[in-house]
């Protein structure tokens, strides 16, 4: 444990749980879908498994071969849903699931250790580079974990797990806390 009041050079910063605008998108990944999503959201549709794309505050996460999760700042869900519905054609489903998800953010050079002690997934940078996202078991709960371009991690979990995971993550970052 670091001494009280001493600065921690490799501190892990934990933020959240935070409510975001979350939309579930179900459709076949056709070229027309990719074009429509890029127009409506300004984010390219990630079609490669276990990847996510981000543009500013908006992101799209691959959840399955025909399923994605869009995240954006809270309060924008209605506008985004309207934009998607206007742009998409054919057989699709867009559902506002903002109430179902809460987001955490872990940053710092040792944030990866927090992930490693929480999940059996491989978080080595070789396997989990920026742009990757995985859905997995996390501290006996489940979570979607995304690695961002600057090396920090988003941990997106069910709202009902959010309080529990906040406690878990606080304890898991005790070895290298942001504010000792």
């Amino acid at each position: 444990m670091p001494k009280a009041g001493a600065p921690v050079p490799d501190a892990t910063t934990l933020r959240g749980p935070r409510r975001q605008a979350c939309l579930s998108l179900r459709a076949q990944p056709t070229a027309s879908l990719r074009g429509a999503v890029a127009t409506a959201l300004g984010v390219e549709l990630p079609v490669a498994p276990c990847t996510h794309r981000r543009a500013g505050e908006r992101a799209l996460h691959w959840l399955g071969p025909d399923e994605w999760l869009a995240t954006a700042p809270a309060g924008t869900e209605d506008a985004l849903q309207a934009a998607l519905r206007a742009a998409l054609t054919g057989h699709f489903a867009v559902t506002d699931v903002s109430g179902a998800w809460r987001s955490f953010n872990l940053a710092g050079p040792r944030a990866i250790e927090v992930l490693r002690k929480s999940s059996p997934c491989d978080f080595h940078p070789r396997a989990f580079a920026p742009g990757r996202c995985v859905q997995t078991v996390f501290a006996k709960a489940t979570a979607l974990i995304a690695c961002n371009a600057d090396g920090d991690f988003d941990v997106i979990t069910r709202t009902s797990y959010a309080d529990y995971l906040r406690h878990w993550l606080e304890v898991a970052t005790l070895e290298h806390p942001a504010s000792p």
Partner: protein
Amino acid sequence: MLEIHCPYCGESRSEEEFSYAGEAHIRRPSDPAGLDDRAWGDYLHFRSNPRGAHRELWFHAAGCRRYLNVLRDTASYQISQTYRVGESPEDV
């Protein structure tokens, strides 16, 4: 603990993420009303339970939430192949 390759995620994941969903490739009879009780009972309740190669259905519960087929040896637990629902194993 098994490592199971998910054909949808394209990577191997811990067994913890999956749940077992029974024997694979069991086709629902096209005309259930035309079956006698024995044939319907066989379809509903009776499975092959082999020692050796077994075609199984698994569910990637904590991952992409898709069903997948697994060809697993019930004696050695070795998984020789996983493939998507609707596909058939190459060598069986």
